[in-house]
């Protein structure tokens, strides 16, 4: 590490203007990036971590935002106020960027090879032939299998992880001095995430470039970064090398961030939230192994609430008029039992069939074969009327709390509507009273009754979603990635709420997530799915401690452990 920083930000403030009101989102941040290091920036959504890096690239939206104060220097050159042309030269050539969504950052009408070539032709003096060779060598550098095939492939023909590799190839094509990676793995599966992280690390070692790695996941950052910078509400609350941040965090927010992530080693009764840490009221009670075993035994002595037997769901794609229909088994021969009062964790990577399975249980998308028995009754062949009756018992909490609420209905009405449909409560007044109780129950207030979904924050919206779900007094609730879209600190609050509700109302959960650490924290029984099949099923702790199959092992290994 040399002492001269390659990039330095001094007291940078950024404001956004909306409706003629200036709103400062970054409050005078300063940091330095040295050559040949990986700097991790951690923060929750809205902390300004992406905006500050967009400012470096000069990519802030022109009319609504402006840098009000401060200096950004790159190799003794002031970047603020530079002309568009000069910035274009720096962008891609000296500072490159990788985005979160590889799916939307590649042009779908151009082959992957051509897109990388384009950058080389733009920024270097290579001939067409040389550019092609360079592209292929870049593809092998980012460890793409069969570079020649990827060269001629269109983006939809390769997988998400491969797309992100192409993006990385594009970013490092001109041998930039700085690579900004903005949540490069958030949209990817854990196992792919691990590969990409390793790739970025080895690339950095080879090329000696500096990397700014932005993520919301503290343990992920700890695996890759040398130095870590924690951002909160537009301020840098703490920066330092990673061991000191993890082992002895000084700022309360950093402490809270580390504590809110469900630990893989011990099982807290309640996850500490940011508020708990700030108020020093962390409840350190742990569910001991004996307690848990006793609980498990009592759970499994009862009759199963839901029994899934040899369930299959096949999707057909029509390829032509005369060719045969091709079938794809999204769920293949799945059988398991859910007992009353337990939480069944369901993990798997994207495309493994976990959502298809939940849709089949909810009867939203009926299974092709097999049976689902609820309370001893087969529910795969119900009349529409019986089906509606069953809906009251089996409910779902969705992943995206915003998308699952109708934007034109105030939340109070939205919670009341299912009660009206299923004849819960006797009158409008009675129902309103119940809604207010529910709002109170999930940590919202009476005054939220007439608010619209867009007036809430992400965590509050998820609470509304939960309130609407439990308004029906269901027995079985499927949580389909219910906390995946939330920030870690909010996630902890929602998980605590779910556990509380479970104790009070005796719910049974099927908890679906791609995040093994969350699932492990929540579940009694764990089910690992891969390519439509069950890989592993059994007690959550047992599976985590001694995985039976290679896939489960790989999945567990891929979880960023932190320090």
């Amino acid at each position: 590490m040399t002492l001269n920083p390659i990039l330095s930000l001094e007291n940078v403030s950024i404001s956004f203007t909306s409706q003629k009101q200036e709103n400062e989102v970054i409050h005078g941040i300063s940091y330095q990036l040295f050559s040949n290091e990986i700097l991790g920036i951690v923060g929750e959504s809205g902390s300004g971590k992406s905006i500050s890096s967009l400012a470096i690239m000069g990519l802030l939206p022109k009319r609504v935002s402006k840098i009000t104060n401060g200096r950004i220097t790159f190799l003794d050159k002031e970047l603020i106020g530079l002309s568009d042309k000069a910035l274009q030269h720096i962008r891609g050539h000296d500072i490159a960027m990788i985005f979160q969504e590889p799916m939307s950052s590649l042009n779908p009408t151009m082959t992957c090879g051509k897109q990388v070539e384009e950058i080389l032709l733009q920024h270097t003096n290579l001939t067409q032939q040389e550019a092609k060779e360079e592209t292929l060598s870049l593809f092998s550098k980012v460890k793409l299998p069969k570079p020649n095939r990827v060269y001629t492939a269109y983006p939809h023909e390769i997988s998400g992880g491969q797309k992100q590799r192409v993006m990385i190839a594009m970013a490092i094509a001109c041998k930039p001095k700085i690579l900004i990676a903005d949540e490069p793995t958030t949209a990817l599966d854990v196992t792919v995430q691990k590969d990409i992280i390793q790739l970025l690390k080895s690339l950095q070692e080879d090329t000696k470039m500096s990397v700014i790695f932005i993520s919301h996941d503290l343990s992920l950052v700890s695996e890759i970064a040398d130095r870590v910078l924690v951002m909160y509400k537009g301020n840098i609350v703490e920066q330092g090398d990673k061991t000191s941040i993890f082992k002895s965090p000084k700022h309360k927010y950093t402490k809270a961030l580390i504590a809110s992530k469900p630990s893989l080693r011990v099982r807290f009764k309640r996850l500490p939230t940011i508020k708990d840490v700030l108020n020093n009221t962390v409840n350190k009670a742990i569910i001991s192994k004996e307690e848990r075993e006793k609980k498990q035994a009592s759970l499994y002595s009862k009759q199963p609430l839901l029994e899934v037997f040899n369930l299959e769901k096949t999707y057909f794609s029509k390829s032509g008029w005369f060719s045969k229909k091709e079938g794809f088994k999204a769920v293949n021969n799945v059988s398991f039992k859910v007992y009353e009062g337990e939480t069944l964790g369901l993990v798997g990577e994207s495309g493994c069939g976990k959502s298809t399975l939940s849709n089949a249980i909810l009867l939203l998308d009926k299974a092709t074969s097999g049976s689902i028995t609820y309370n001893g009754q087969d529910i795969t062949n119900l009349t529409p009327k019986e089906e509606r009756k069953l809906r009251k018992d089996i409910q779902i909490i969705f992943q995206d709390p915003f998308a699952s609420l109708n934007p034109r209905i105030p939340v109070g009405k939205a919670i009341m509507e299912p009660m009206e449909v299923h004849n819960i409560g006797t009158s409008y007044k009675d129902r309103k009273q119940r809604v207010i109780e529910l709002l109170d129950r999930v940590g919202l207030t009476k005054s939220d009754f007439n608010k619209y979904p867009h007036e809430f924050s992400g965590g509050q919206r998820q609470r509304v979603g939960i309130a609407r779900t439990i308004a029906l007094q269901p027995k079985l609730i499927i949580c389909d990635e219910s906390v995946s879209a939330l920030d870690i600190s909010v996630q902890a609050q929602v998980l605590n709420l779910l556990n509380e509700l479970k104790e009070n109302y005796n719910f049974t959960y099927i908890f679906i997530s791609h995040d093994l650490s969350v699932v492990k924290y929540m579940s009694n029984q764990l089910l690992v799915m891969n390519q439509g099949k069950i890989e592993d099923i059994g007690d959550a702790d047992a599976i985590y401690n001694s995985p039976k199959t290679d896939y489960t092992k790989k999945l567990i290994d891929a979880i960023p452990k932190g320090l």
Partner: protein
Amino acid sequence: MSRESNSLTALALQKFKRNFWGVFSFLFIILIGLISVFAYVIAPDNSVSANQMHLSIHSKNPGFKVDMLTVPSIVSTNQNAFDKWFFGVKNLDEEIPISYHNIQNDTLFYKEYVSGGLEAEEKHIVFSDFETKPYVTQKHFVFGTDKYGRDMLSRILVGARISFFIGFVAVFISLVVGILLGSLAGYYGGKVDAVIMWLINVTWSIPTLLLVIAITLALGKGFWQVFIAVGLTMWVEVARVVRGQVMSAKNMQYITAAKALGYKDFRIIFKHILPNIMAPVIVISAANFAAAILIESGLSFLGIGAQPPMASWGAMIKDHYNYIILGKPYLALIPGLCIMSLVMAFMLIGNALRDALEVKT
């Protein structure tokens, strides 16, 4: 409650209020609307269809003034005030433009107005048998007179009715049919969609003119037939937009949530999908309003729209378009400008709504 003001509709309304042209057009349309409702109250010539002809003063310039002798009819009509206000006076009085008059005892001597410097011979009427007030008044034709000597201003005011009503009726018919079929096609998909799409494509391929002629043949000539015909061609666009919107809306998670909560299809379509897709429908309705007015004037111009003596802007242009080269272009220009400004107002309102509701078209 004060909280109500945060609904998406209220937010859009606030945004709309900030758009000058949108509000201006809205006020303009309201004005035209009031004019068309109270046309007979405002119009100088309040006879049915503003059809009081005075052939001797045909096609006069705007601002033309003449003395008018009114000879009341002996036949009395029993029309109530409401009828007179909204459908015009069934006037049987005779109006004679005069250039000179003189009263001696119970006889009125007058000379009829003749243009071109000629003078008419003196006539007289004995008026002892009808109790009347002044028979002779000065009449002022603000927009001049048409080729039958009718008051242009009154014709324009009364004609606004047709343009306005065709807009309303056509948009109403197109909304009812379009939203119903579009949402069914979009929501259920599959065979229902195939059948409705087939119907849409067939309807779309029939030229509006041909359809109007066919409907006219079946139902007879008249402006109601035009209303229906225009409405029946216009639902296609609405249906297509609604279908597309429903198809994307039904994949939204709150619809899945509604299904999971056990709501019936009817409830999902009408309470959860339709309110969320109204924005593009409102925008397209504003455009349809404008299009309907244009189609009606086109049809009237061709003579298959409103039938004489009914006043319609399109028909007024038809009556007078050959005066354009005869040095009296205003006869066709005035109704033309009226059509233009009303259509323009609807277009501007459509634009403002599109911005306010953030519809991307």
